[in-house]
Structure formats: structure tokens, C-alpha cells
């Protein structure tokens, strides 16, 4: 399994180019339409064939982990919104839960259910952004706007609830800041009732399209053992056929009470990951509907002191973010300031799998593979 990485490195040295011509080195990014931000990949090409790839990241590094050590526990939330900026609700959830775990606080059931509803809506929104941009990378531009049409509905709910569309921040250590507004449940249900029709529409455009299948089937294959060795998580891991989801493996919030399936792929190619994410959107919709049905009344804030001072100790807490396992390693020294806030970003680790996946493919596939990993540079670079 260690030879996965070796393959990448040797790929840069064996000059098996056509007609022994010299290889062409091309910089994809940091400003390139398909790198989803400021990611740079240096491709070694033989014509259009990729011999090897090297990743360069860090263009969006803002020192999020360092900033965490310079404020109080609650000050960190808004900074985390800017991490994975297409799924900021999940970022906040992971951090709040990590600190709550350290504090030993149990949050009230209503807050748990609301958190689940909001994070699952966020997962749908994030997957919609992924589907739209991924399809656009492959050239199907209409789907992008269709996806954004549905995402808009989720963002409207967010705007009403959080007061913000992108950098949502109402999860507090111990619960939530706000209770729902009037009509929140109805709006969520509205969206959920409409959504299956929309997914069917996307699948109608893409799933049986021969060009789409030609562009994604058998592209960027990641076998299950390679996926585990490279440490990928989330839909990328599940697309490779490993049934692992933190929501099931280590249930947090009220996921244990909710009924949902974990879709897995068979071949571990781009098409499988596409199917997995589509199915995940359906499952998220199921979760939201169940959670709204079961949504209990009661307080939304647990018993937390005004000044948050967790006992000295450390905790690693992971949640299933839309992109994979989002882990927070919080070390407390018993003061009001976190001693260390390590973030284990899913995209960062998943992106490591890119070079082995693109080797031997064509330039156009690199774009498809970057898309299928679903990276957000704000999270990779932090």
C-alpha cells in the first residue's frame, strides 16, 4: 500500500513519453477555472497524457489554527465559518461538539435535532455546489444553474435562520443561539418535498448521458485498499466501496435515532462517487424529514457557564462533514483560551489521493478528478 505514493514519485522520473519526446510541464492553477480556488497542480504531460502530478497548496493559508489559540473558546466559531465556506454549518458543529465533549456538557434534544436539520441541509447544499461545479468542469453547464437554484432555497432558509447565507454561525458551545423562526419546519419540508423531483432532473441530464458516462466511468479509480491507505474519507472513501460514515460509526447528536442508509460505490471511479453523492443528498433529505417530524420542544441551550473554561485535557472529535471526516483536536490547559485547536480537514487528506488517481489519465480527466474529490481550498489551506 505504501507503493501508492511511490508510484507517484517514480512517475516523475520514468520518461516513457511517446517518441521519446521531452515532457511538457504545465501549471494548472493557482488561477485556473477548474481548480476550485487557488489550488495549483503541476502536471507532467506527454502530449495530453499525464505522467505525474505534484500538488502545491497553501495559497489561502490564513493561520486558522494559530488564530484559535488567541481568542476565547467562543471566538473561534466565526473564524471556522471561513474554513470550508460551502459548508460552514458543519465546521461549527464539529468544533462545538469537540468543546462540549471536553466540557462534558449534554445539549438539549431540541438543539440536537435542529443542529442535525441544519447540517444535513448544509450537506445537501454542499453536494449541490459539488455537483454543479463538477458537471461544469466536464462541460455540462446547465446543471450548474439548476443546482444553484435548489441551493438558493436552502440558503434562503439559512438566511432567515442564521442571518447569513454563507458564513453561518449560530451554533454555540452548549446548544444554539436562536430558536427557529415561524414557518421554519414548513419551509424545510417544502424544500424536501420538492427535492426528489430535482435530483431526478439532474440524473436525467447526466446519469444516462453517454458523454457523461464516457467522461466519468473508469476515470480516477481508487480501489478500497488504496483509499484506506491514502486516508481519504467521506464520499470518496464510500465511492470506493468502504462503508464508513462517522454518523453511523460514532453517532453524534441524535443520528442514532434517525434512520438513513450509507450509499457505497463498487468500482471507486468518478461515476461511482457521483452516484454516491447523489444518493447522499437523498439520504440527507430523509434525515431532515425525520428530524423535523421528531423535533421536540424544549430549551435550545444546555447548562454552560458564561465563561467557557473546559478542564485541562485533550479531545479529538470528528464529524461527518460533506467532504469527509472533519476532526477537531482541542487541547485545553484549563483556561478560557484553547491551548491548541488542530483541525483535521477532510479535503486536505483527500487531495493527497489526486496524484495517484491522475497518473496515466488525460488532461481533461485531471479536471474531472479534481472535481470528484470535492475540495474546498479554504479548508485545505486553513
Amino acid at each position, binding site marked *: 500500500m505504501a507503493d501508492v505514493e511511490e508510484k507517484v514519485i517514480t512517475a516523475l522520473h520514468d520518461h516513457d513519453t511517446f517518441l521519446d519526446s521531452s515532457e511538457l510541464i504545465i501549471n494548472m492553477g493557482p488561477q485556473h477555472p477548474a481548480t476550485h480556488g487557488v489550488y495549483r497542480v503541476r502536471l507532467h504531460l506527454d502530449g495530453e497524457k499525464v505522467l505525474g502530478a505534484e500538488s502545491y497548496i497553501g495559497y489561502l493559508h490564513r493561520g486558522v489554527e494559530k488564530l484559535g489559540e488567541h481568542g476565547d473558546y467562543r471566538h473561534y466559531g466565526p473564524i471556522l465559518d471561513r474554513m470550508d465556506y460551502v459548508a460552514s454549518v458543519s465546521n461549527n458543529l464539529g468544533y462545538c461538539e469537540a468543546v462540549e465533549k471536553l466540557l462534558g456538557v449534554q445539549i438539549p434534544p431540541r438543539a440536537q435535532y435542529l443542529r442535525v436539520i441544519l447540517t444535513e441541509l448544509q450537506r445537501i447544499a454542499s453536494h449541490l455546489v459539488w455537483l454543479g461545479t463538477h458537471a461544469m468542469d466536464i462541460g455540462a453547464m*446547465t446543471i450548474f444553474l439548476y443546482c444553484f437554484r435548489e441551493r438558493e432555497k436552502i440558503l434562503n432558509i439559512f438566511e432567515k435562520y442564521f442571518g447569513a447565507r454563507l458564513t453561518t454561525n449560530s451554533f454555540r458551545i452548549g446548544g444554539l443561539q436562536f430558536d427557529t423562526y415561524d414557518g421554519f419546519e414548513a419551509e424545510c419540508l417544502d424544500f424536501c418535498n420538492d427535492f426528489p423531483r430535482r435530483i431526478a432532473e439532474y440524473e436525467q441530464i447526466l446519469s444516462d448521458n453517454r*458523454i457523461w458516462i464516457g*467522461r466519468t466511468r473508469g476515470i480516477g479509480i481508487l480501489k478500497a485498499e488504496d483509499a484506506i491507505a491514502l486516508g481519504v474519507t467521506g464520499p470518496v472513501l464510500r465511492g470506493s466501496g468502504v462503508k464508513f460514515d462517522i454518523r453511523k460509526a460514532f453517532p453524534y447528536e441524535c443520528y442514532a435515532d434517525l434512520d438513513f442508509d450509507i450509499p457505497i460505490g463498487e468500482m471507486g471511479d468518478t461515476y461511482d462517487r457521483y452516484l454516491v453523492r447523489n444518493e447522499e443528498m437523498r439520504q440527507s433529505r430523509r434525515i431532515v424529514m425525520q428530524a423535523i417530524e421528531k423535533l421536540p420542544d424544549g430549551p435550545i441551550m444546555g447548562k454552560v457557564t458564561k465563561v467557557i473554561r473546559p478542564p485541562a485535557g485533550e479531545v479529538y472529535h470528528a464529524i461527518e462533514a460533506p467532504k469527509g471526516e472533519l476532526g477537531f483536536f482541542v487541547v485545553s490547559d484549563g483556561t478560557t483560551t484553547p491551548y491548541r485547536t488542530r483541525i483535521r480537514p477532510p479535503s486536505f487528506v483527500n487531495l493527497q489521493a489526486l496524484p495517484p488517481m491522475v497518473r496515466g489519465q488525460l*488532461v*481533461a480527466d485531471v479536471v474531472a478528478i479534481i472535481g470528484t474529490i470535492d475540495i474546498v481550498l479554504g479548508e485545505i489551506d486553513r
Partner: protein
Amino acid sequence: MVEYFLIPAVQILIIFLVLLLFVAYATYLERKVVAFMQVRLGPMRVGPYGLLQPIADAVKLMFKEDIVPAGADKWIFMFAPVITMIPAFTVFSVIPFSDSHTTVFGYPVHLYITDVNVGILFVLALSSIGVFGIILGGWSSNSKYPLLGSLRSAAQMVSYEVAMGFAIVSVLIYSRSLSMIDIVNAQKDMGWWFAVIQPIGFFIYLICGVAETNRAPFDLPEAESELVAGFHTEYSGFRFAIYFMAEYANMILISSIAATLFWGGWLSPFPNVKALSFLQVVPGVVWFFLKVFFFMYLYIWLRATLPRFRYDQLMRVGWKYLIPISIGNVILTAVLRLYFRT
């Protein structure tokens, strides 16, 4: 003197200006149609319903700085767009918009510039020159993305031209003439559009036409998510506009040829059916433009619907499917024609 110079000159000027307008509004059409397909409005700000948008774009592009990258082959870089644009516009001189003619100051004036007896050959010859502009533009940019884009473009255009040529040959077997006017008249005589007689040829031509104009799903030379902007990555300002105009002019051209060769040019549908003769009230030139508009719409529709092919898949479609099928079609047509000699 007047008949051979002045009137053609005026005709050329008028057709050129009208064509420019068409090209400009083809971009508007594309943006609007794609927008409606994508649940949005498209340009709405410049003029009513954004109708002045193409003019605003042209003015903007004209006043932009003309950037020549360091290390570029300056002269080739500057002339490459022109090489692409000139053939795209020149070809319209043999496109018959209608066969109706009037007399101006006693001289007969046709709705086409000229009728060459090698019309379709002239079209194919000139439209092949356009690819040089793309190759040279990509090559002279001294940049890797344009280079890849132009190489893709060259390979694509060369391979699809073959199948396209064969598709046209299958029409010529029926028309027995290379003149565009004669081809339309042959359809009139037969009473059927060639699209009905030559469905395979028509579809091959249609697909190749999309590939020839570098439009989706064959827009690999300028695949923006892969090659940034392909061969015109380094172009800005009016030189970019020229490439852009050439692309749309080519779109109109391919649509015009499709209308002429396969959809009976200016003819109304079913020209020989008496019951439908009332359709001939509508002038031929309107029929022609309706047909062109339909093909343009088809292109835009394709772009809004389909993902992009990969380079090797594109080549496979071209060489493994289209060319053998088109050759088979030519042979089949020839045999049938010989057998049912009329």
C-alpha cells in the same frame, strides 16, 4: 463596369454589414436562449431586454488594451485572428440567400453575391484556411495552454473535415453540381429536401458542423475548464473579439450550408406539394433565415445540454464512427443512384 464592380461592391458591403449585425446578435441569441434554458434571464441591463448588449460588448472590447505576451511571435500573433476571420466572412459570397432578383437601374441584382460553379468546393477550401489562424494563434502565443488548445483544434478540424466532405459528396451525387444554386434547384426538382433523401449524410454533416465550429460538446480547443480558454487564452481586446466573431460567423456559415444543402435553401417545405403552395407567399429569403435560425438554435441547445467530450473520445467518434459511416453512405448512395438511374 457597373454590373461587374459597383453592384457587387455594394452587395458585398451590405451583406458584410448585415452579417456583422447577425454575428453580434448571434451572441445575444445564444446568451438569451442559454439563459432561458438555465432558468435565468441573460443580459437585461443594456437597452430593453438587453438588446444593446452586443454593441456594448463590441465597444468594450474595442477599447480594451491589446496585450501581446512577452516572447510571443508578434506579427503572427497579431495576424492570426484575421486569418481566421477573413475566410469565415468570405465564404458568404457564394451562399445563395434566395434566387429572387430585382432590377436596380436596369441591372439585375440577386440576393447572393456570386454563383460559382465550384461553389461548395470553394466553401470547403476556404473554411479549411480558418484552422490556420487557430493553430498560428495558439502557437505564436508562446504559452502552453494555447499550444495545447491549438493542437487539439488542428487535429479536430482536420479529422472532422473528412467526414464532413464525404457527407457533402453524398449530396453532390444527387445534385450533380457543385454550384450552390444548382444544389437548391436540384432539391426543387426532386421535390424533396436532401435531408430526407440523405438522412445519414445530414446527421453526419450536422455533427461535423458542430465539431468544425468548436462548439459544445466538441469545444475542446477552448474547453474553459481544462485549457482556460484554449487557443485564445492570451488574446484580449479586439483581437479576441475577432476570434469570437469568426466563431459565430462560422456558426452562421455552417448553418447556412446545412440549410442550403440539406434543407432546400430558400425553398419552402415540400415545394412540389400543391396543397402547401401557399407557403410560397413567404419570401424565400425568410425561409432561408428561418432554417439558419433553427440550426443556430440547435447549436445553442446542444451547448446547454451536453457535457464535453474528452480528446480521445472525440477522435474516436470522428475516425471510428463518422468517417466509416460517411464513406459507406457515399458508396451506398452511388450504388443506389446507379441502380435507380433517372
